[in-house]
């Protein structure tokens, strides 16, 4: 009965009221499954932490990278305690904030790692409010598109599904059990998205600065966040309008300002600028070629030294370059743009781990309404599943048995990234196609009356 009432209200009443009713509904009906989910997720992690597998998992190159390995954090802490700069030597690559955080909570590290992913799912609860507008605007679209719009009932489960996809995703669990600090970075990005969706420009700017400070790449999320706020404040993206420039500068100021403050604070904490080359230089110039699930290590192990700079530029530009065309194409849909950006970061960043993959995979249930337009989901699922199983097998053959070699492992890395790119581009296509159908009707006809098919070229 509640569902019915809400259905009615969502059409009749204004957005604010719906939102309130929605939150109320969430609070009452979702609490039980969410609690259950939390308990299950925490239990799995706690059991794995205590089992003998924890050590094995924390050594896997797929799960930890030189940037976020717990072993290196411990080493950095030891150096700090001895009064040596943690960045002396070439082991520690975390930011100064991170080391001071762990300096105080090192005894409770496991708890921190267990709690941090839980933060992420907070974001999920608020994704719904955004989607609400489709239901409200339904009268604007042609009649046959109504089936493309999601009923409020479907949407109530999205927060739960997002939380489930993140908390029970084996990738997240592995990353958490390995105590990879990737989980904390994910939590910061999730909080940033949450604040953005809540419409708090100040908090969003600060958290984006913090995420950027942690791993640089979230820099590209500046564009979607800005687009979101502009849309929210009904400011058209028009370069000749002063209101556009005013808000852009305002947001940029918050962002850059907090970035400067954070960096300055780090300097005062540490008393030196050591961390700049050791963290950001390390991310950009990729000196550590330990194999991982990314694309960098094999290329730069094979590369002649004098081409290195050129190719590093080529590889790194991948992460940042797609922001421009995607922002233009998706300027009406900043939330989807955020998803695309996070996915691109996790594919093209220099030291990716499965924790990064898990972050953007958590968004997939939010786009469940695109499912009917996906074309390669079977192929992609098979590829990703097979690759996840083959990573440890080929690693074993290469490193322990000594019978295979790095080419085998890299082949799987390539396949894994191929699968990810296919997944992301498939969702992109599906999103565009849904938008097309929303404006042009679901059952398209050609001029001569035959059924038309949409082709992406």
């Amino acid at each position, binding site marked *: 009965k509640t569902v019915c009432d809400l259905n009615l209200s969502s059409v009749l009443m204004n957005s604010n009221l719906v939102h309130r009713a929605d939150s109320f509904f969430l609070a009452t009906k979702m609490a039980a499954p969410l609690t259950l989910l939390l308990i299950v997720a925490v239990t799995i992690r706690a059991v794995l932490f205590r089992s003998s597998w924890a050590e094995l998992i924390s050594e896997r190159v797929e799960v930890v990278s030189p940037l976020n390995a717990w072993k290196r954090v411990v080493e950095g802490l030891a150096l700090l305690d001895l009064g040596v700069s943690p960045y002396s030597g070439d082991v520690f690559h975390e930011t100064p904030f991170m080391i001071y955080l762990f300096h105080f909570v090192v005894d409770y590290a496991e708890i921190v790692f267990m709690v941090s992913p839980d933060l992420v799912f907070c974001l999920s609860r608020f994704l719904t409010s955004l989607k609400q507008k489709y239901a409200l605007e339904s009268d604007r679209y042609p009649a046959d598109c109504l089936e493309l719009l999601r009923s409020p009932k479907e949407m109530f489960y999205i927060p739960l599904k997002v939380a489930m996809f993140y908390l*029970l995703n084996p990738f997240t669990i592995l990353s958490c059990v390995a105590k990879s600090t990737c989980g904390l970075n994910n939590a910061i990005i999730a909080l940033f998205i949450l604040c953005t969706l809540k419409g708090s420009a100040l908090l969003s700017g600060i958290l984006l600065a913090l995420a950027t400070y942690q791993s640089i790449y979230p820099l590209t999320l500046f564009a979607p966040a800005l687009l979101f706020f502009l849309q929210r404040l009904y400011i058209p993206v028009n370069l000749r309008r002063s209101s556009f420039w005013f808000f852009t500068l305002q947001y940029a100021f918050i962002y850059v300002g907090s970035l400067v403050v954070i960096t300055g604070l780090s300097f005062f904490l540490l008393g030196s600028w050591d961390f700049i080359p050791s963290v950001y230089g390390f991310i950009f110039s990729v000196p550590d070629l330990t194999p991982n699930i990314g694309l960098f290590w094999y290329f730069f192990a094979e590369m002649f030294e004098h081409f290195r700079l050129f190719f590093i530029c080529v590889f790194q530009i991948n992460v940042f370059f797609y922001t421009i065309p995607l922002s233009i194409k998706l300027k009406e849909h900043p939330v989807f743009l955020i998803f695309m950006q996070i996915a691109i970061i996790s594919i093209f960043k220099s030291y990716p781990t499965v924790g990064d993959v898990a972050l953007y995979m958590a968004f997939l249930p939010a786009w469940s309404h695109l499912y009917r337009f996906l*074309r390669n989901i079977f192929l992609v699922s*098979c590829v990703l599943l097979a690759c996840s199983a083959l990573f440890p097998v080929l690693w074993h053959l290469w490193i322990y*048995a000594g019978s*295979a070699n790095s080419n085998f492992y890299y082949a799987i890395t390539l396949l894994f990234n191929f699968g990810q790119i296919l997944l992301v581009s498939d969702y992109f296509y599906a999103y565009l196609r849904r938008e097309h159908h929303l404006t042009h009707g679901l059952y398209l006809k050609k001029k001569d009356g035959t059924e038309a098919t949409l082709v992406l070229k």
Partner: protein
Amino acid sequence: MGLLSDPNRRKALTGLLTRLNTPICIVCYLAGIVWFMGLAFEPFTLRTYMSENAMGSTMVEERFSSGERALSLAKEFDAHKRKAGGMPVEWLVKAMQSRGLEVFTQSFSRKLPFPDENKERYMVRGTNVYGILRAPRAPRTEALVITAPCSPGNTNNQAVALLLALAQYFRNQIYWAKDIIFLVNEHDLIGTQAWLEGYHHTNITEYISGSLRGRAGSIQAALSLELSSDVITSLDLVLEGLNGQLPNLDLANLFYAFCQKLGVLCTIQGKLQRNDWDTAEGYTHAAQTMMLMVLKQACGRSWGDHGLFLRYHIEAASVRGINSFRHYKTDATTIGRLLEGMVRKLNNLLERLHQSYFFYLLPSLSRFVSIGYYMPAFGLLAVILLLRALDLWVHLGAPALAAVDGVTEAEQPSSPGVLTVLTPVVISHLTGVALYLLPVHLQEMAVEHFPVSETEAVVLTAIAIYTAGLALPHNTQRLLSGEGTEQGWKVLKLTALLYLAVLLGCTALINFSLGFILAVTLVPITASITPALYAVVMVLLSPAFTILYCVFIYQELIEAPVSVSEGWMLFLSVISQGILDHALYGSLVYPLLALFIYPCWLMFWNILFWN
């Protein structure tokens, strides 16, 4: 990417694949089998060649001449062995010391999880004796190992004696750049395992062993020698190691090259090489040799002392002397020279053997099939599973997504569809866990209540659990959703097919033979399963029956065919050996079968009782 983005062409392709699915699958299966059998045909194989420069171009002159002395030494050793009632440790230490080696001993003990009836041992206690010849010409950072097992009874005395004679001869040479370790191990594989764990400071299989007091550098290669008579007619090379691992092909090439040079008859799998490849007999012979290799590799046990070295990244092979009363005879001096030549070539190595192949099959010693040639045979079988999965996916349409996600995220109670699939998956895997854990842990209880020995108890418990798994309540979906729907079993089949494909793919990469044999028996039944299929067919192609067939085929191939009852006894001993190999040396075949293959098969079994 045209195929992936153009909807018309995609539709045409999926239409073709679903319409012609069954014929394509049958063709793929037959093509896979034919491809595999074709591998033994000589024109399709490659001639072996030495890839390693350091071993290829250098000339070695063999001068070892004290074969006769070795034989008299063997008699002396035999006498002391009888007197000591086991390994004559003191005599060996003295003998090695008098030949100028640094001698050390290592004692070890291991309680087997249950008595090994083949070798009649339960509480194993023993001593390894090893002597190190320090390299005079180079920093002592690398080493070679020659090992001879000291077996009970009359066997292998000659090997130990030849080892001592070689040590004496090697001691007087100045060209050694690597330390040479002469190891005499007791209780064959158990001794080797204890020594290797001691040498590398690891403890993976719960041995209680003394630490090693003397070490040489990192071991580059190892040769294991087994001789049981004064005169032998041919030498057999054994390559198959733990979990189907093989040494670098260059080691086999090296052995073959020296056999050619010294005119020694050499065999592989006990089969001589034939030159008439274009006749039917010639082909059958090559096919039999290759099949033997496949069967031995698939069972994942170490077929000689060398097999355990492979895990430590040490290239190793066993050389076994065989006396089959042919006219052609080889004396101990020639065998000594052969070993001398091989060790000298290995001594020339500048880096570990890595140039040649690690994944190969040998239809004869001079011919090999590399991974690029044999993988398509497996690929053709595995692609059937994917084609069937695609077919099901197309038929199922939208609801199947939940099932695919159900594989990665085993706990998604979001829709009843997932739950119907999840329950059989969980039940099957719990049965698998029971099959893995219970036989060894329940043996005491079984021995109390039934008149059987421990070994029988373990094997029979395993078989009982296996059979009980078939009788479990497999129609849980009826309790959950009232009626077994057609959608339901299709989703389950899709899940199981993808699971099996990934499983077999991973297995075939690590141990091609095992993956291939499992694929040959499991693929046809799993691809064609519907609730209407006969249960008998399903049982006859289950993993346990696959093992039984392999036992009979193996006996047939080694020309010692057995009756049904003998075959059954062999089957029981194979199971107990498999469990023992897992506990003693860490062989992975038993856990693989119990924890993954069997549950996966049970998932298909479940479909049979869907309605």
